[in-house]
């Protein structure tokens, strides 16, 4: 079995197409790390050989250059005519490969250079824009490198690769201190550290506090260790986060919950100190153990509260993850619908909404479109609160979710000098 080939795998009784990414030996048995095609990478897993159905068709690895095209084609064709297709594609492929070879023979160097260029371009973009996203990843980074993480009193399964020291991956278990986010693979070390560590909250200034949550603002440049630890941790759950560059150009806003032991990190978002693309969020994450409790929405709300205080409109940095998109859409929907219904606004433009909510007009338009609220009526576009939307609002309103109180935000937008915004050191 070579990595890169695609096979059908028995998953919970269903056969699903999966790409083999790698293999390892566990207890004298080879297990394979597979990625289910058309499913998120967080569902990737190790399977034993007997899960693979060798009666169904298998696809050999494809040349890297054609990946994009193949991907699209693949999504169209389905099981019934797979065989035929396979043959045709393989035939196709060999032909194409020949072509490619010819091409490569002729202009090998140039193409390689071109590829390199695009990579350096991307890095350049990373450097200048301060982006925390990186799309192109190494094959090694496609595989999860930890099986289990202990944070506080939670035991969590990581979703993605994270560049903790490679030696730590041997056990696949990570102990992470709830407060300093320091990581250990040795339990004894963790124990020793816990005895000595007195930190009980994110090491920055509390900018918001209510009965439910607290927010801390942390400067990546001043708290390098902590922010690096945070990034490493969040990389376990964010696919597109990159740790290529250091944390200096970011401010981290950390949401915590309090108990008798201290402030426990629930989620955070990072924000560029100076965003050229008017992003108000770079990375945003609710730790998995706190997910599905509405914390994501609080984080998003907080990011917009900050933008309101700055008097700017903002949007999260793209690409969004699938969960990110859903959270943002939910927040946007809720905000817009609440605004429109509660304030009984009748004569309001998208721009005015944008002013009120600090959301960009594009985000507002997209939300309205997904809500099917933008109608064409008597020669102009109107925002129409449909019955479904109002009923959804009523339902939402009954839930009584916690909301942030903007008066409890004690925060001035931090100002940085030009020298402080040069992040080399």
């Amino acid at each position, binding site marked *: 079995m070579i990595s890169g080939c695609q096979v059908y795998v028995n998953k919970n009784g269903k056969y699903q197409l999966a790409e083999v990414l790698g293999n390892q030996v566990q207890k004298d048995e080879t297990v394979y790390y597979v990625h289910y095609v*058309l499913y*998120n990478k*967080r*569902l990737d897993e190790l399977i034993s050989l007997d899960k693979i159905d060798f009666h169904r068709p298998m696809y050999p690895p494809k040349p890297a250059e054609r990946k994009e095209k193949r*991907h699209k084609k693949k*999504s169209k064709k389905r099981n019934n005519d797979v065989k035929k297709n396979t043959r045709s594609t393989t035939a196709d492929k060999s032909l194409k490969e020949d072509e490619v070879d010819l091409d490569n023979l002729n202009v090998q160097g140039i193409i390689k250079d071109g590829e390199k260029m695009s*990579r350096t371009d991307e890095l350049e973009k990373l450097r200048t824009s301060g982006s925390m996203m990186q799309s192109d990843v*190494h094959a090694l980074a496609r595989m999860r490198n930890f099986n289990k993480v202990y944070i*506080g*009193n*939670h*035991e*969590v*399964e990581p*979703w993605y690769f994270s*560049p903790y*020291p*490679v030696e*730590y991956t041997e056990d696949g278990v990570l102990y992470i201190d709830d407060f*300093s986010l320091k990581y250990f693979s040795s*339990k*004894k*070390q963790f124990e*020793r*550290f816990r005895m*000595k*560590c007195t*930190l009980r909250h994110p*090491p920055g*200034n*509390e*900018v918001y506090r209510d009965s439910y949550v*607290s927010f801390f603002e942390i400067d990546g440049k001043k*708290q390098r260790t902590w922010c*690096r630890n945070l990034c*490493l941790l969040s990389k376990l759950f964010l696919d597109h986060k990159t740790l290529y*560059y*250091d944390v200096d*150009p970011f401010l981290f806003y950390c949401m915590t919950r309090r108990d008798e*032991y*201290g402030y426990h990190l629930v989620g955070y978002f990072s924000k560029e100190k100076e965003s050229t693309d008017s992003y108000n969020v770079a990375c945003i994450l609710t730790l*998995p*153990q706190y997910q*599905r409790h509405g914390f994501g929405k609080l984080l998003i709300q907080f990011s917009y509260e900050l933008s309101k205080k700055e008097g700017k409109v903002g949007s999260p940095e793209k690409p969004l993850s*699938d*969960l*990110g*998109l859903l959270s943002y859409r939910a927040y946007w929907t809720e905000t817009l619908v609440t605004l429109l219904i509660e304030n009984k606004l*009748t004569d309001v433009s998208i721009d005015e909404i944008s002013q009120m909510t600090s959301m960009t007009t594009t985000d507002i338009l997209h939300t309205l479109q*997904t809500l099917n*609220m933008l109608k064409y*009526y008597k020669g102009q576009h109107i*925002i*129409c*609160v*449909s*019955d*479904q939307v*109002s009923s959804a609002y009523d339902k939402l309103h009954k839930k009584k979710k916690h909301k942030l109180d903007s008066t409890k935000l004690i925060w001035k937008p931090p100002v940085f000098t030009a020298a402080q915004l*040069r992040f080399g050191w």
Partner: protein
Amino acid sequence: MKQKDIPDLDTEEQQRELQHIETGVEKGEEEEKDLQAVMLATNAKFRGAKVQDVSIPTPDASKTWIDASKYYGSKYHYPEDYLKFSSTVEDTSGCQYNMDEVDNEFLDTYNSDKIDRDRCTEDEFEILMYNFERVVDKKQPYLSMDPSQILGFAEIKQMALVQDEEDPTFMHRQLGNQLGIPNFRTLLDSELPVAPRPLRQLLDKFGSDIYDHWKKRRLNRKGESVFAQLKFEDPSQQQRDDNDPYVCFRRREYRHARKTRRADVQGVEKLRLLDRDFRTARQLLLMVAQRELKKQAEMRAEWGVFKQRCAIKDLKRELGIKTEDKDLIDQKKRRLNAFRVQRAKEAAAAAEKERLRSKQKSDGKKGHHSKRSFAQRRLNVPEGPNSLTAQLRRQQQKQLLAQGAGLVQESASPPPVQPYVKLPSAKIPDLEMTTVNTVLKDKLDGIKKAVSDRIIKRKLQDEGWVNFTDDPYNPFFDISPNGEELLRERSHLPFSSIASSLYTIEDSRQIDFSYVFSNSKHYSNNDNEVIKVNAATGQVVRNDRHNFMPAFYDLAGEDGDDLEEYGLNKGSAEESFYEKNRLNVSEVLFKLRKRRGRSGCLWIDRKRITDEDEYQAYLEEMDMEENITDSVDTGEKRKRVNAYDARGGAKRRLRSRFMFDSDLPPFNPIDPSRLNQIDPQTQEIRFGAMLLSKAYDGMHQIRQKQMETYQQRILYQQKLLQQRRHQHQQLQQQPKAVELANSSSLSSRAGSRNYSQGSENAQNVSNHVNGSNNSFAASKSTTVNQIAKEIV
């Protein structure tokens, strides 16, 4: 809008499919099935379909770790306020080496054959390991190239004992020494059960054994540090290791600013200042720390005193001693200088002895008890000026000279008066403290007063003059959205710039202009002194003191000779005309018309709105009069009346000229600022600035001179006038008194400096008028009288 408000939405709806919505998710991932399912579900929900809740499956995170409570034990005390914190993880986590299972095993076996003080604790072990690591990382950063070159124990020991200023433990020790705290610990350090011994001692005791263990571990790692670190960019490598996914947190390279001597100097200077600031801050903090230590000591002492007193009280109660409890209560505390302390102490000691003696007498039986209690009490008495408690007392005592003096009455010497002695709060006289704010406010008030004084003074100087600069033209529009039908009349709208716009203006006569004026603060410094000018006639309105324009601005007055006739020849028609036009507001009396003239030139014509009848009558009267004078004045002027010489004609021409001319001469040579072709806006500002300047005074003097010459001329004209009047009276005895009154009032207005003469004139005139039996003229004259008085 709500859907139910638009019932016809669906029927009329021509919904367009807008462009595909950008999700912001990566293309490849957008197609993922779970995401698609959820998005479809939400879509369907908002389009009215009933769907089940779908969600994206994520790996399990719901398990809890039972062992966690072992590691997270101690409680945390929350601050009341929002937390402020700047210490780093390293600051708060003690020794940076954390021993693992391997170390633990080693240490256990190492300690197994030792007892108590010979054992190496885990903390001490970590300190040693940390120091080995620290020294080698510093001295041999590239040890991994050739691990065999690792430093020997002797070398490491030597270097480890060199104080490292960056090392927090070193800093702790130093601070501890400075403040006299043997075991210096900050809030960020955890409480260790046993304080570790100093490094030197540890190195001597366990160093070599633990060094061997450490060396083995280090060499096992091929010279890398014992525990794996994050992989950073290797600066020694030329090529960037972009492809290693474990390399993270690279430095961002940026172009360095070019080095110049100046930048260097600036940098050095900044560093110097920074260094100084830090030193000062450090000094301050040290002093604060020392103060707090003193406070702590004081608290301890007080606590000791309190406990002793409790003991005494108990003893007293037990033994039934009933003496006064004076020494159980804190005496009023006083600040005393050393001398006085001594004195007081001596006095107190004497008193104590006295008391003791008497007590011994009274409590003879219980002598030994009281001796004991006295010994105990002795502790409470300050032992001397140099003792700790006395120092503390002195420090905290807030004291008053008066009471101090009262106390020292016992001692013979009068207290020396100290200039720096603090008065008790009760004795401080109730002086009102002036704050910076009040001082500033006073200053501001002074300036304001100076300005307003100047303005008043200026107003007096300007008596009889119209200040156009103070009277900005305030157009008032009732702007309301209009329909198409109103646009037709646009050409009749009074303001040309507006005429081309989409706003309508109501008939100017219907607009209540009083609103504009009464609301305009600009005017209302002192309302009755405001001068208003009728825009159409150039006539002064409202303020009856200034009934007429000064000749300086008078259109008719441009020709001096004209005036002479003007005063004479006013008829009743004119009178009534002015009476009619004497409006309370500077009403717009004309319409504007835009028209395209020859060669595409744009003209703006003016047309009066008011009725022309009376003016017409006035003109006709003038014509008549002219005829009469012509007929009477046979002797002197017998030539035919030229159409251009006729005064009526002149008036008509003047009037028609109004249609196309501006009200004021376009260029006023007297105003110096105009000479520089400064635009009116800046000029306003400059004028304002000028008010307080010498230049304005100078200009004013020039103007006054001009005025005087002009008055001279008027006086001359008046003489002439009187002569003529006599002639006229002879010829026609009846009608002209009114004009006379008017003309004289004009003259009185024209020369403010000359009021005495003006009033004289007016008096004369009024006499005349009284003489003639014209009731209207009489009433007029009274007003003239009033004016004259006012002027005086």
